[in-house]
């Protein structure tokens, strides 16, 4: 008999059905992946298993654990199952852990509640669990508050809380979506090694994540289970169009065309730019250090790095939102003033920004027409309102939205439509440089492709230069002509797209590439993930900033800071670039 048996499960909110007639099972110790886009009902299914759906949800069907019915049971009865038999790891550990309670107390409470340990013994067991999930100095972290830990460490705590009562089934709902790519690899490996005989239900939107880790897959679409089978079978011969679409949209670093380098004139020159926050020298946080980059006309330059690498601070300095501490930004031959207010109107027009969260970046009280027209009201005051409306409609058409969108409010738009509006707003003044700060990070696979395609078309038509900030290497590979890799506020490597992805020169670049999961069950076994996490910017390591995590580090690397220098046609900041040979997995 299987451990979990779900039969004809449906979840409805009023008229709307979010999970439709779902049946599947999970055997003891098995690992099963649930894959689908946002809104496919996968998270609702997870919540239904533990009876955690909101009160207005309507659940029907059967959920059996070891033959015992869970559906329709009271909270008191379910409390004996929760954590003890079925445990859950949630997506965003920053939200899912209680910010007001010390980490140790949150874990301890689980043991006390289920009468698994008490007093000193409970503390010992919690500390032991924290040790097992790889928290450094667990005795001290026992007393830490969640906000004092990094994102990766918080997710380790979350996993510790899920495994501490030794459940039979672990449900992990997008456990790595909120994390950086190198940390994602660590967390997935941790889940795999720790779960032991616990069955795993891994829920994700990313086929690459489940490829090497789950034995069976369940593919969800619009609340329905559309395809299921052994992982290798689903990958090698997908049956449904939607599955094929998901496979096509899965992040790949080994297929698809790479844009060739462009050879235009230099439009923007960033010269030894340094950005820091805080006045007192002791507390100063140097977010960007000594960054030199150039951008050509009609070129897309990607800036890649994990959270805290200084990407966003660099953008803010380019736009004049934070004056740089030193260095210069030269645009079309003249140096830009440090603050936005001091820049000329034409310079302000020519640099525009597209934001990460498309819906939140639009004023909810304004109609699309007004949102897109606003830059015109500032920069082209003489325009008549009829003329303005015409310009807005034309711009929206270019962005792929017809006239019917003019009078909509942001909440009436999908994520992809909202980002098109964001792009239309940024482009209505005809800028020469567009800065996209994680502009597609919030979008689902197919929508993401469409928005990227739109950006490429706009570039082809008008010779737009794009600075493309992203943590997603697959998107960067398909989108950009050149790539700059940042770590702790410094440039480690700048290279043409093709050479960066085939022969990375910096060990960190190589580690980033290796950490990207491959959506192919036969090739998913990968190099051991990069250990540790990026240190604090307040106290960057001496010498090379990457040396504490670098597998190739020598004594020299911890003493002397490597300069960014020309090597084999790329710029790289590594002492050992000419001694070591790094090859991408592909």
């Amino acid at each position: 008999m299987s451990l979990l048996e779900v039969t004809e499960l449906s979840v409805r909110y009023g008229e709307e059905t979010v999970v439709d007639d779902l049946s599947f099972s999970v055997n003891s110790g098995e690992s099963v992946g649930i894959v689908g886009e946002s809104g496919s009902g996968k998270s609702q299914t997870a919540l239904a298993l533990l009876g955690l759906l909101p009160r207005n949800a309507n659940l029907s069907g059967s959920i059996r654990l070891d033959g015992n019915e869970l559906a329709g049971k009271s909270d008191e009865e379910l409390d004996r199952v929760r954590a003890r038999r079925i445990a859950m790891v949630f997506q965003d550990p920053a939200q899912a852990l209680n910010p007001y309670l010390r980490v140790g107390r949150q874990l301890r409470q689980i043991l006390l509640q289920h009468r698994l340990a008490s007093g000193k013994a409970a503390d010992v067991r919690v500390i032991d669990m924290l040790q097992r999930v790889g928290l450094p100095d667990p005795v001290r972290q026992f007393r830490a508050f969640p906000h004092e830990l990094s994102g990766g460490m918080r997710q380790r705590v979350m996993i510790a809380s899920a495994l501490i009562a030794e459940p039979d089934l672990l449900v992990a709902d997008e456990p790595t979506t909120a994390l950086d790519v190198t940390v994602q690899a660590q967390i997935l490996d941790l889940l795999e090694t720790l779960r032991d005989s616990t069955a795993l239900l891994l829920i994700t939107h990313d086929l690459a994540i489940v490829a090497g880790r789950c034995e069976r897959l369940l593919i969800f679409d619009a609340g329905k289970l559309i395809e299921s089978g052994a992982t290798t079978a689903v990958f090698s011969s997908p049956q449904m169009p939607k599955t094929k679409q998901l496979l096509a949209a899965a992040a790949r670093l080994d297929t698809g065309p790479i844009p060739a380098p462009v050879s235009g004139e230099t439009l923007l020159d960033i010269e030894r730019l340094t950005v820091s926050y805080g006045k007192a020298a002791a507390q100063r946080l140097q977010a960007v250090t000594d960054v030199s980059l150039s951008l050509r006309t009609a070129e897309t330059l990607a800036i890649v790095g994990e959270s805290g690498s200084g990407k966003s601070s660099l953008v803010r300095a380019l736009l004049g939102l934070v004056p740089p501490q030193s260095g210069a930004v030269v645009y079309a031959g003249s140096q830009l003033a440090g603050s936005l207010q001091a820049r000329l109107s034409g310079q302000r027009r020519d640099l525009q920004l597209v934001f990460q969260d498309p819906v939140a970046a639009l004023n909810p009280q304004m109609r699309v027409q007004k949102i897109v027209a606003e830059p015109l009201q500032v920069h082209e005051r003489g325009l008549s309102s009829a003329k303005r409306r015409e310009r807005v409609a034309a711009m929206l058409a270019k962005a792929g939205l017809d006239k019917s969108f003019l009078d909509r409010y942001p909440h009436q738009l999908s994520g992809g439509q909202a980002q098109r509006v964001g792009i239309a707003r940024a482009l209505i003044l005809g800028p020469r440089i567009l800065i996209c700060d994680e502009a597609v990070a919030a979008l689902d696979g197919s929508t993401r492709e469409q928005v990227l395609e739109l950006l490429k078309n706009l570039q082809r038509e008008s010779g737009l230069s794009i600075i493309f900030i992203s943590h997603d290497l697959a998107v960067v590979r398909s989108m950009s002509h050149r790539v700059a890799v940042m770590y702790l506020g410094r440039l480690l490597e700048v290279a043409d797209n093709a050479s960066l992805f085939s022969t990375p020169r910096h060990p960190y670049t190589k580690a980033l590439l290796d950490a990207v999961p491959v959506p192919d069950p036969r090739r998913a076994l990968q190099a051991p993930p990069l250990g540790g996490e990026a240190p604090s910017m307040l106290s960057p390591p001496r010498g090379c900033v990457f040396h504490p995590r670098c597998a190739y580090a020598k004594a020299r690397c911890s003493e002397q800071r490597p300069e960014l220098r020309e090597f084999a046609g790329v710029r790289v900041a590594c002492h050992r670039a000419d001694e070591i040979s790094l090859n991408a997995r592909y």
Partner: protein
Amino acid sequence: MLRYTLLRLLGAIPTLLLVIVLAFLMVHAAPGGPFDDERALPAEVAEKIEEAYHLDEPLPQQFMRYLSGLVRGDLGPSYGYRDRTVDEVIGFGFPVSLQLGALAMLLALVVGVGCGTVAALRQDSLLDRAVMAFAMTGISIPVFVVAPVLVLLLAVKLQWLPAGWSGETGAARYFLPVITLALPQIAYIARLTRASMIDVLSSDFIRTARAQGLGTKAIIRHHALKPAMLPVLSYMGPAIAAILTGSVVVEEVFGIPGLGQFFVRAALNRDYTLVLGIVIFYAALIILLNLIVDILYGVIDPRVRQR
């Protein structure tokens, strides 16, 4: 933490100084004098009195004199109670008011938070609606209406509780005034607790706690109560001020010899030094209690503590 507290204490000095200046000027701008009577005093007597109380000096000099006394904790002589200083009157009246106020605050917190939590847990039930209806009533009806109604009902009609203070000794005499004072606060705190508890209960970390099988009681006690108390804590400042002003009315209605009653009498008798003294004393008290509330905020929310 200590540094923060000291800085906040220093920051309170300008506020208090402003209150002192304004109160001093307003009292002196009021028409009539403390010794005016229906029958005019002989000129030389009036002169002697003015000299004794330094009322003949120019205003800035009087202010400096008052301030230097204030620094030493001396609020000067009372004009009305000729044989007592303002310090003595406050020392006599405040303990009574403090007892009333503290009991009312405690009652308001316990009942208000309790009712609010229950209402939040049974959101939209009959119980929830009843609690909220009661709360709305409690907020809408002023103290000077509630007090006589309660007296009429519980003391005169049912004769369960004494109607006044004088002549009574036991704990029973506390009931009516404390309930009257606490009622609007219970109502407001209940509404506040309900709203913030509903908010907290819908947050992700509560869902995590539910997924851990903690059960309602443990979730409220260990996970939800602390964050849900933050808005209530912020309300403590205004609540204390409301109870202080409320006690002025309540002490008058029940005939309690507290500071509120002295304050009313002082105003009626044009006992300006006493009015001024009590205003400054209350202002200092409210500033201090607000400071304590701010510090407690940091104790509850570790993220505030770090800043």
